[in-house]
């Protein structure tokens, strides 16, 4: 499989109204792909991610998103996502439907989706308000063998899962290293997988049990160095914690947010242009 430009991968595989997971657990977050979705003005997306952070704040604030499935929505270590809050609290720029889970629930929902099961199971937890309040639709059922109380979570099968990873080899196999979150499960659960990678190599730097997504489950690979910035790619560049702190200020008011997005995302042709403008490319 030949790598294709990210612009083409998004144009070909991501459509208005689809359910799209962009996974990454603070690491390997597909920022470049999220920005390209914003540039191509996708609308009514049903986004999924366990820990929506700055890229989801940007997509929500730019009006790409109708629904969010998630289990923790914040700027890690910094505080709130102001655009997510504005959408939920004031319906700006549009109302945002929430499908809210816990981490444990969302992990088993992806695993179920990847396994071809209709639901994932976990032990029922100490009673809370979430099962009742959330539109996630979890149910409590007894184990058919022991009678132990279980929580059943509907499987998640995104139309598209987008990941960022370190390497693709000549045959199109993809290596993911470091903190992997639920990346593998989200990919295996999806009908279509798009991956951006730091680089193409002859042979992956993979130990025998490494997480490698075989080429034949992937619809498109794009080579986007720095594609996870301001999150990070282990072995390539660290997380820009300073940017995450700055985002708190940028996203606080609507106008400041819109002019930042206009200048740094819409008015640059691609991710290389974005990084250059921010002054982070070497």
């Amino acid at each position, binding site marked *: 499989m*030949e*790598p*294709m*430009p*990210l612009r083409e991968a998004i144009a070909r595989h991501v459509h208005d109204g689809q359910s799209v997971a962009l996974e990454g*657990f*603070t*690491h390997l977050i597909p920022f470049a792909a999220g920005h390209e979705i914003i540039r191509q003005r996708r609308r009514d997306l049903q986004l999924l991610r366990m820990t929506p952070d700055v890229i989801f704040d940007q997509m929500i604030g730019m009006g790409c998103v109708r629904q969010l499935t*998630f*289990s*923790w*929505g*914040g700027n*890690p*270590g910094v505080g*709130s*996502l102001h655009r*997510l*809050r504005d959408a*939920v*609290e004031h319906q700006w720029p549009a109302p945002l439907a929430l499908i*809210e*889970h*816990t*981490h*444990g629930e969302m*992990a088993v929902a*992806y695993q179920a989706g990847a396994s071809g099961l209709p639901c994932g199971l*976990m*032990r029922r*937890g*100490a*009673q*809370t*308000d*979430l099962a009742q309040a959330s539109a996630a639709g979890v149910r409590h059922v007894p184990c058919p063998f022991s009678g*132990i109380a279980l929580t059943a979570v509907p499987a998640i099968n995104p139309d598209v899962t987008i990941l960022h990873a370190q390497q693709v080899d000549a045959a199109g196999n993809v290596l993911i290293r*470091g*903190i*992997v*979150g639920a990346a593998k*499960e989200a990919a295996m659960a999806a009908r279509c997988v798009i991956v951006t990678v730091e*680089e*193409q190599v002859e042979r992956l730097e993979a130990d025998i049990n490494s997480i490698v997504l075989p080429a034949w489950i992937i619809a498109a690979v*794009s*080579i986007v*160095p720095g594609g996870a*910035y301001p999150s990070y790619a*282990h072995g390539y*560049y*660290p*997380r*820009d914690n*300073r*940017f995450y702190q700055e985002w708190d200020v940028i996203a606080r008011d609507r106008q400041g947010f819109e002019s930042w997005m206009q200048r740094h995302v819409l008015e640059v042709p*691609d991710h*290389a242009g974005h990084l250059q403008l921010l002054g*982070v*490319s*070497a």
Partner: protein
Amino acid sequence: MSEITYTADEMMTITAARQLRNRAVCFVGIGLPSAACNLARLTHAPDLVLIYESGTVGTRPDSLPLSIGDGELAETAVAVVPLPEVFSYYLQGGRVDVGFLGAAQIDRFGNLNSTVIGEYERPTVRLPGAGGAPEIATHAREVLIIMKQSPRSFVASLDFRTSGGYLEGHGARRAQGCPGAGPRTVITDIGILRPHPQTEELRLVALYPGKTLQEAKAATGWPLQVDDDIEILAPPEAADLRALRELHARTAVAHASPVRIPIPLNANARGR
């Protein structure tokens, strides 16, 4: 000898660190819990096992991570496992001794809210949400909670119950069959609360030096019960304070360092 000066935050973090015994397996939340756990590891509990929900098991960071998934956590870990494994095999599998949580609101039975202020459908403040807290609160053998005490955070009635503590008290949690014992210790910026053995209502059992019962009661949104043998804690040891301040100093340097992305010169030729 000159008197040691310290902040309420420092006293709270050091008090929380002292609750952790060496070799315990601890599931760590970000912020104050992370600071307390790493301080314990750098002082009296060098073999404390720290698990962050990002999948880093037995991690030993030199500075505090800003997020639960900073690279430092992975580089210094014994193992980095996929997230579903952390929740299924380590937490639900019963291998975690101590879960360490914070929240926006707590009630008298140690139930926590980190979801919304106001109504769920029309919140005045939308908070980040549950994350792994409900599972940590359910499965860890015991739970430590660290929160600043004020009438806005220590409330008579939660706006939303995100994570279960002792539920309605009086054995309700046990009756529901929860594996873990629940919130055994709540560390605040005024003192320590623990559940009453029968009612399971949180009571004040210790005060920091210079803090008063009146302050504790005024900072609590329900009529706060006080243990008969209330303890007045000693001020922090100089060595603990030094270790904590050095940790914060290393963290400030680490978080401020600029990031440069090495872009290969031929990147443009390769279909970006």
